[in-house]
């Protein structure tokens, strides 16, 4: 009668995870994308002439480096449930900044630093409208997509700046000595580690996920929602500007229309990599696999003389298939469990 609730039930024990590790790691979108990446690579290496050559890796990585870089902050932004459509325009703006300043006599190092600063400011403009004014990011960045591109094109007009210091343009295309891997990958790997740690191993990253899943609850738990988003947009601007510098140096040409339309490729790759457009889900590894998958497919198909329209169709189909298959698999999973219950023992009798 007087039993205190406190002592009545035995102290519970809790498992850390409901499922064994291999199940948790293997049955994920990311694992599927990585597996697909491996399969496509092997199939292409076997069946497409010239694909297995090391030069393929070089070209491939040079091509996707811009997308890889921009995809890093984009992943975090999409995980918070926002989106940044202005990234490609920031690439253009950064390219033009670098070009005009260099033309005016500034060394590349300094001009590059200013370009990154301009990118960060562009990101801060997005961040301001989204977090301070409180506007939806999709709408804001459709606006700044036009604004930043307009500034880039307006600043440089018909001209293109091409006379960059050879040291830098060569560096942008150089390879790590003794490997087919472009040097720019060093920059990427460093940034990828930084972003992966930031997202997966820091309190900031925990906040990012919480914001994406339930921003109000995150705010009530002391997550600085606005500040977090603001920081992410600034990072996105800065990294896009960095990608813009690489892009400019790689092609040796600073133009206002550089990288037009790249935003959709970046977003497609991030989504293919398993990041949920609704926020709260996804990881860096999956995104990298997603970018590489699109890159490898494109490279293999081009080598096999498949035209670019077919490559586009395949990319689109892959994107659709990747999300549809997850939802179909979940549905099958539910069905199976449902059937299992029905076949199970009858409900125990009432007491």
């Amino acid at each position: 009668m007087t039993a205190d609730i406190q002592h009545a039930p035995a102290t519970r024990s809790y498992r850390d995870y409901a499922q064994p590790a291999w199940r948790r790691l293997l049955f994920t979108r990311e694992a599927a994308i990585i597996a697909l990446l491996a399969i496509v690579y092997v199939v292409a290496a076997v069946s497409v002439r010239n694909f297995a050559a090391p030069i393929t890796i070089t070209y491939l990585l040079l091509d996707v480096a811009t997308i890889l870089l921009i995809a890093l902050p984009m992943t975090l932004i999409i995980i918070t449930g926002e989106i940044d459509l202005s990234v490609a325009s920031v690439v253009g703006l950064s390219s033009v900044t670098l070009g005009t300043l260099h033309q005016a006599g500034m060394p590349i190092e300094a001009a590059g630093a200013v370009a990154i600063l301009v990118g960060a400011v562009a990101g801060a403009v997005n961040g301001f409208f989204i977090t301070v004014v409180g506007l939806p990011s999709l709408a804001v960045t459709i606006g700044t997509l036009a604004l930043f591109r307009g500034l880039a094109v307006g600043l440089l007009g018909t001209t293109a700046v091409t006379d960059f210091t050879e040291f830098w343009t060569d560096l942008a295309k150089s390879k790590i000595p003794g490997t087919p891997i472009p040097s720019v990958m060093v920059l990427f790997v460093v940034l990828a580690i930084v972003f992966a740690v930031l997202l997966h191993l820091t309190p900031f990253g925990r906040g990012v996920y919480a914001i994406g899943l339930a921003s109000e609850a995150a705010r009530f738990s002391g997550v600085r929602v606005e500040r977090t988003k603001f920081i992410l947009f600034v990072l996105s601007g800065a990294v896009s500007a960095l990608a813009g510098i690489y892009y400019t140096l790689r092609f040796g040409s600073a133009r206002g229309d550089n990288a037009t339309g790249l935003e959709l490729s970046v977003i497609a790759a991030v989504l293919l990599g398993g990041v949920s457009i609704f926020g709260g889900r996804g990881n860096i590894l999956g995104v990298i696999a997603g970018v590489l998958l699109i890159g490898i497919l494109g490279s293999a198909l081009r080598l096999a003389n498949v035209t670019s329209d077919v490559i586009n169709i395949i990319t689109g189909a892959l994107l659709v298939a990747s999300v549809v298959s997850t939802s179909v698999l979940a549905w099958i999973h539910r069905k199976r469990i449902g059937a299992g219950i029905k076949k199970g023992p009858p409900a125990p009798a009432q007491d």
Partner: protein
Amino acid sequence: SDGGDGGSGGGDGGNLAITFLPKNLGNPYFDTSDAGGKAAIEEFGGTYAEVGPTEAAPDAQVSFINTLTQQGVGGIVVSANDPEAICDALNEARDNGIKVVTFDSDTNADCRDLFINQATADGIAKVEVDEIAKQIGNAGQIAILSASANATNQNAWIETMKTYLASDYPDIELVDVVYGDDDDQTSFDKTAALLQTYPELKGIISPTTVGIAAAARYLSTSAFKGKVALTGLGTPNQMRDYVEDGTVTSFALWNPGDLGYLAAYAAKALIEGDITGAEGDTFDAGKLGSYTVGADGAVLLGDPYVFDKDNIGDFDF
């Protein structure tokens, strides 16, 4: 995987697999020029292929050039979207023994072996300015509807036109240069905007085939039909209706089919080692006869041809 090995049939052992890389696919001008190239390649028994991006973006051609390098074709014939952006890719291709010929739109001279020039900038600028001057009576406002803001050849021509206008036609005022991005709809809307912005406008020069067709189409249904003159570079098939209904009096162009044809023969000559691209080299170009390489590795096709009501019926491209 058939691009790399098929083309060693003709000549003396050179790899005659020649691939055309236009600014973008689905552009009728390049369809015609590449068809000329195809005809030439079939004549001399090489392997023709055409690849390209769907949109004329500066960097889009690079991955195609890279792919061709990996496939080890014999020659690339390319119209550059950007004089600089594809340079390194082309040089890498050349390092791998591929001969590079540019046509229609050049890159920097050190990134290719030869440039097949459709006409000199002077020639083109002069024809267009003379035509418009004739039609508007040597005085009044004119505007230019160009391709994209960074288009190398258009920009060069426009510069020459400005100089020529200033020296020879002081009464003609060039009020604006607008860019239709070689996109139908944009060019169309820009034409409309021009006409409203400058009510006194007497004529439009559009030195691009997409632009002139769109402008003609807008003019033909507007109140300005017959009042505002239009000339520029166009293909006869696209312009036929407008010449016949009086919207356009005359326009100019070289024969793009011949341009591709010549480029293909130039590539063959390079591949087979007949020429190196040095000034003074001479090579044979099938039905077009013999050509000589000029300064900076440029080969000139000829003078632009002016089409009007009387002669347009003779052409089909």
